[in-house]
Every structure is written in structure tokens, then in C-alpha cells.
């Protein structure tokens, strides 16, 4: 594998997405800065965790990676191929290699389509295999792989709990045998007791199928549990990216420090000082000038409101966007 290190499995460069939220014909467009100049790379077999508050652009980033929406700028290279400049026929092969598990297990399954059909349809549509009995056997195999019995294929989604539905969503995504899975807040709609079951299932599947994940969550303890690298987002921008141990030992960005200090600590002897951030995340319609975090930062100085820092390296694989963290 070491020879392949020069070419990452997935590489995003300068990804930017602005939405125009003003639909009036003659009024000035109002731009939402959903994702701004985000770059990162994921190696095969790794898990990249993306963490940030709601409104930080995590889900938009996921949709950009899967080519569900078009970026205003930037590129995504998957196994060396640029996703946004490829032909239709190539796009269909890429569909089989990248998939997504969605946030809300109650909304991500069509209520009128039976489980078996929901899983079989993408297999047929992408011509992964054909023949009715072969596909049926594959559906049964997928259901068992995610810990469900094969005869749930004849039921409708409403007959299942949230955790079971999320398993069905995973089985459906795995039907086309992807190598890369984007998991967008896959456990945030579930009970805490179910969350760990689903997280274990993801770990199991990664082992078994050699998957590469991007795991998106607002919950830092979930991200810490599953990730090899962590990307911290704030208001559409990447503010820090580092391997998980490095990030927890040397968090450089004040925002990362605040998030880490807010993780509940099971060990009572460790007296951790919580950093409480004040206020809400500012509107993405008019992000603060200078550093976007400056309006809430407990370390902010005057120049932070003026100077917009770039991502800069402060260690091996450790990038941060803060004028002070650089020392």
C-alpha cells in the first residue's frame, strides 16, 4: 500500500458551494456560504470523521462528494478520476463505488416500497447482477450481513424501528458493492443504546468488506470512536484537520479545543475545564469578515476580525486555520 500513498483514494480540493436563497426575479441574489474552500484527502481503508455544529456545511459537503449537487468551485478526485468532469457512462460505474447512508432512517426509505424491492432496485438499476433468483439471494445475504433476518424483505419500512431501518439503509447502500461509504449523521436520530450497535456494525462491515468511510456527525464522541483522521468544520470552512490522537493531544484551533472540552468525561478524577462558547453560529448569509470564528472565540484579538487565516501545517498531517495556533 505504501507505494500508492502518492495518490489518495479520495481527494477534495478547494470545494466550494454557495446557494442562492433569493428566488425573486429581479432582486439581488442572496448567497449562503454552505461550503467554502474545503480540501482534504482520504486513504484507502481509512475513516475520515467530519465534525461540526449544525449549519457548518457537513451535509452539503457529503452531497458534493457524491456528486448529488454541483460545486461552484473545486474538484473531487476519486481513485485519481475527477468526478465533475466525467462522462455519463463513467458516472454510472462510479455510482457503484461510492454510496451514502442517510441521516434520518424514517425518511430515507420510501414508505410504499417493500424492503426487498428497495434493496434489489439499485442492484438491478446499476446492473450489478441480473436474474431474479440471484438478486433475491443477494438481498437475503445483504440483510443477514447487517444483522436482519432475510424474511423482512416482504415488509414495509413502517414495520421497523429506527435502528432496524438504519440497518436496511446500510444494506441498500452495500447492494451495489461500494468501496467508499459516506455516513451522514447516521446515528444522530437513534437512541443512545442503539447508536453503539450501529457503530459496531459499521466497524464490522469495514473490516469485512474493506470499506473506506467518511463519517459525518455533530457528536465528537462518536467521531472520536470511529475515525482515523478528523476534519473540524465551522461555518462552511475546515478549521482543523489531524489524525485522531494528534487532534486530541494537541488541539490547535480554539474551536476544536472548545468542542473537545465539551465531551462528557467518564473519569471523574480528571478535572476538565469546560470551555463554554457563547452565542450561536453566525448566519452563513453574511459570515464574519476575517476569521469566521472570531465572533465567538475566547482568544480573539482585534486583528482576528480583519485577517482571514489560511490552512497551515503545524505538524505531520496536522493543518489548522488560526493566526495564533501557529505560534
Amino acid at each position, binding site marked *: 500500500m505504501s507505494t500508492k500513498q502518492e495518490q489518495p483514494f479520495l481527494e477534495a480540493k478547494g470545494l466550494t458551494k454557495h446557494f442562492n436563497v433569493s428566488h425573486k426575479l429581479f432582486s439581488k441574489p442572496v448567497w449562503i456560504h454552505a461550503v467554502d474552500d474545503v480540501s482534504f484527502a482520504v486513504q484507502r481503508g481509512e475513516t475520515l470523521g467530519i465534525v461540526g455544529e449544525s449549519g457548518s456545511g457537513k451535509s452539503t459537503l457529503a452531497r458534493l462528494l457524491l456528486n448529488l449537487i454541483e460545486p461552484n468551485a473545486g474538484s473531487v478526485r476519486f481513485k485519481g478520476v475527477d468526478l465533475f468532469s466525467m462522462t455519463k457512462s463513467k458516472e454510472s460505474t462510479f455510482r457503484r463505488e461510492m454510496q451514502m447512508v442517510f441521516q434520518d432512517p424514517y425518511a430515507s426509505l420510501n414508505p410504499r416500497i417493500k424492503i426487498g424491492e428497495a434493496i434489489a*432496485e439499485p442492484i438491478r438499476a446499476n446492473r450489478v447482477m441480473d436474474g431474479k433468483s440471484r438478486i433475491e439471494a443477494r438481498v437475503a445475504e445483504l440483510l443477514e450481513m447487517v444483522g436482519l433476518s432475510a424474511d423482512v424483505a416482504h415488509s414495509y419500512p413502517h414495520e421497523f424501528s429506527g435502528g432496524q431501518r438504519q440497518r436496511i439503509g446500510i444494506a441498500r447502500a452495500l447492494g*451495489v458493492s461500494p468501496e467508499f461509504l459516506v455516513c451522514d449523521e447516521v446515528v444522530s436520530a437513534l437512541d443512545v443504546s442503539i447508536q453503539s450497535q450501529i457503530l459496531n456494525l459499521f466497524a464490522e462491515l469495514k473490516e469485512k468488506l474493506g470499506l473506506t468511510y467518511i463519517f459525518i456527525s455533530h457528536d465528537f464522541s462518536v467521531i472520536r470512536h470511529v475515525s482515523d483522521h478528523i476534519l473540524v468544520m465551522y461555518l462552511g470552512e475546515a478549521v482543523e484537520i489531524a489524525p485522531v490522537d494528534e487532534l486530541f493531544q494537541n488541539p490547535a484551533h480554539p474551536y476544536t479545543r472548545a468542542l473537545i472540552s465539551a465531551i462528557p468525561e467518564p473519569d471523574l478524577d480528571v478535572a476538565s475545564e469546560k470551555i463554554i462558547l457563547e452565542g450561536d453560529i453566525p448566519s452563513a448569509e453574511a459570515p464574519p469578515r476575517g476569521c469566521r470564528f472570531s465572533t465567538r472565540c475566547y482568544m480573539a484579538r482585534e486583528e482576528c476580525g480583519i485577517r482571514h487565516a489560511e490552512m497551515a501545517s503545524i505538524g505531520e498531517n496536522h493543518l489548522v486555520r488560526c493566526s495564533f495556533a501557529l505560534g
Partner: protein
Amino acid sequence: MNQRSFASAFRKNRLGLVGLAGVAIFLLVGLIAPIFVPYPKGYGTEIMVSPSLTHIFGTDGLGLDILSEIIWGARTSIYVSSIAVLLAFAIGVPAGLVSGYFRGVPGSIIDTLIDVFLTLPVLPLIIVIAAVVGSSITNVAVVIGLFSWPSLARVTRNATLRVTEMQFIEAARCLGIKQRVILFKHILIVIAGPILVNLTLIMATSVLSEAGLSFLGLGDPSTWSWGTIIKKAWDAGAIIDTPNPYWWWFTPSISIILYVVCFNLLGNAINDALNPKSRD
């Protein structure tokens, strides 16, 4: 869609069964009975006979059996409403799906068209068109169909707008399912309820429109329809006469009402049965 679970859910709905039975009787009467009942024409000998064993619904001012007229009228009603529904379905559903799913320019063009059609005063227009194209029963049916699609398109569009936002549609796109399949399977199956209900409504209202046109004398004078019977009763003054030959105008009126009610009951029951959440 599982046929068995749909049927068993439908069977639990008593009003729906009544509607289904009513619709089945109308269809049967309209399609089969004209084979056994002679087409009422010319003059009869017994004029304005009240209901009796030989003439169960009595006879009209020309001595023709009203039951035969009702039966032949049922055939006309089914013919007219079937054509109107087919036309409305063929135009309204694709228009609603496309405008709801694709928004943007094609969406707003179709939406504007729907708005224009909905604001047009339908009855006067139907009268004008029926007068211009001539009063054959097929023309009447086509004209009614051409004016029935906007309401269906609006219902389809609104439902599509709601469903397109759902995560499972995004999931389907992500899974590489073709746009055509997403539109005509994933979205259509979810909004089938309101569409079917609207279709049964069109089934009902098109018969009302046909009766109205026939009553105004714009129907096909050579074809028996329930509206034509009422028109003839009206022209003969039967509706205000004393003693009143109530059977002449009452039976076609009640036929129209029953036809409308049965189709509406059926539509509601279909809507309930299609929704798996309402099943036990």
C-alpha cells in the same frame, strides 16, 4: 405494491365496499344490460304511466320505458367519464410530476398553464366548444376531459413538490436509479392516493358536466344520457306539473347522485388502503 395486503386493507372498509359495489353495478348495467334492454326510441302506447311491474320506473311523455333510458344513460355516463378520466390522467399526471420535480423553467411554465386553465370559466367555455365542434357524445367527453386535467395536475404537482424534498428521493438518486423511474415509480407510488381520489372525483364530476351540457341541449340528442332524460322532463314541464310525474325526473337525478357518491366512496377507500400506515 402487495396485491394481497392492499385487498385485505380495502376489505375492512365497509363504506369503500359499498362504493365498490355501487361502481360495479353501474359498470355492469352500463356494459351488459343494453344487450338485454332494447334501445328506447319512437313512441310508446302507454304515456306517463307511474311505476308498475311492467314499467318499474314508469314511462315518459312519449311512452318510453324510463328504466331502459336510465340503463342506456348509464352506458353513456361510463363512456363519457372514462374518456374524460383517461385524458385528464394522460395530461395531468405527467404535467404535475414534471412541474413538481423539475421546478425551474419547465416547472413554472406548466404551473402557469395550470393556473390559466384553473381560472378559465369552465362551463361557458365547454358550451362554446361543444357548440363549435358539434354535439357528438365523444366530443363532449373530450371537451370535459380537456378541462378536467388542471385540477389533477395541481394535486399531482403539490404532492410531488412535497415528496421530492424527501430524503428517500435523494437516496434513490444517489443509488443511481434513473430519473424516469424515480418520477413514475418512487414518486407516483407515494402520491397514488391523492391522484386516485382525484381521478374518481373526475369520474364523478365529468358525469355532472355531461348532464349539465345535455340539460342545456348541448349533449348528443341521439344518445340517451341521464342529463337528456332530465332535459326532456323539463321541456315537457314534468318538473313543475301537478299531478307530478316524479318518476320521470327523480330516477335520472338519483342515478347521477348515486354514481357520484359511489365513485367518491371508492376513491376514499382506495386512499386509505394504499397507505400502509393505516393498515393494522
